C-alpha cells in the first residue's frame, strides 16, 4: 500500500495509465475541480458526480489519455504536481503531443486522495476536444 502523500499520487497516476482501478485511491467523498470555463470544467464532489458527469463527459470526447508526472512536491498532505496530459480524441486526433505541462494539486489523507484541483490547458480543450475556434468579436 502506498504510504506518503506523494507515493499515493504516483500510484494514482500509475493506475490511471495501466488500467488498474484508480478509484481505490480516491476517497468516496473526494472533490475534483477542473479549472476554467470549458465543458469539462467545474467542481465535482463525490463519486457520483465525478463518474457521472466528469468522467462520462470526458469519455465522449477523449478516446485515450496518458498522464505522466514531471514534478511532484509537498511536505505535508497537499501535493503539487506538474503533469503531462496527452492522448487522442474520439475522432482520432492527437492532443498535446508536444507534452506541455499543466498544474495539479492533490490533498491526501490516510492513504487516499480527498481533493484534486486540475489546471488543464483550457484553450486546448476547447479547440482539440470540442473543435471550437476562437474568432474575433463583431
Amino acid at each position, binding site marked *: 500500500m502506498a504510504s*506518503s502523500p*506523494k507515493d499515493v499520487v504516483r500510484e494514482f497516476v500509475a493506475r490511471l495509465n495501466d488500467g488498474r482501478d484508480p478509484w481505490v485511491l480516491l476517497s468516496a467523498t473526494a472533490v475534483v475541480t477542473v*479549472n*476554467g*470555463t*470549458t465543458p469539462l*470544467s467545474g467542481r465535482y464532489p463525490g463519486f457520483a458526480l465525478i463518474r457521472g458527469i466528469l468522467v462520462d463527459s470526458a469519455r465522449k470526447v477523449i478516446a485515450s489519455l496518458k498522464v505522466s508526472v514531471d*514534478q511532484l*512536491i*509537498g*511536505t505535508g498532505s*497537499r*501535493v*503539487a504536481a*506538474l503533469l503531462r496530459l496527452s492522448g487522442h480524441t474520439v475522432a482520432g486526433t492527437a492532443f498535446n503531443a508536444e507534452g*506541455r*505541462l*499543466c*498544474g*495539479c*494539486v492533490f490533498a491526501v489523507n490516510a492513504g487516499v486522495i480527498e481533493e484534486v*484541483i486540475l*489546471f488543464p*490547458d*483550457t*484553450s*486546448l*480543450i*476547447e*479547440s482539440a476536444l470540442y473543435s*471550437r*475556434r*476562437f*474568432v*474575433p*468579436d463583431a
Partner: protein
Amino acid sequence: MPDAAPASSTAASETVVRQFFADLKAALNGEPVNPYRTLADNVEFVVTGQTPLSGTWHGRRAVMEDFLPRASPLMGRAPGHGLFPLEFIAEGNRVAVLARGRGSNVLGMPYNNSYFLWFEVEGGMITRYIEDFDSSLAWRIIFRVHLA
C-alpha cells in the same frame, strides 16, 4: 529529485516567491518597484495555453522587452486589481502557488482568473516561472474573441 529537501531550503524558496507577490502588489499600487526584480537573468518564463500571449521566454530581458510590452497594453488598470496568492506548496527549490487574479481588459470588462503558478528558485532568484490558468477565458476577454 529526492523527496526530502532541507526545511531551510524550502523556507528560503518560499520567501523569494512571497517577495515576488509583494513586489507585484506594490507595483500595481503605484510604488516604484520592479515586480520582476526577483526573476533571474536566465529565467525560463512560461505562459501556458494557445493564446497569442502563450509561449516561453528565455531570460529576464526577454520578459521585460518582449513579453511585457505585448501584455501590458492589453490589460486594464484599476484599484483593487492584482494577483492574490491563496496557498503555497513548497519543497526545496520548488514552489507551487494557487492564486486568484482580479483585473480587466482595456475596455474595463472584468477579467478574474484562477492560477496555478510554478516557481523554481536558485541563489535567491526565480529561475523558472510557469503560469497555468484558464487560457480560454484569457483569450476571450483580453483578446476580445468568442468561441464558435
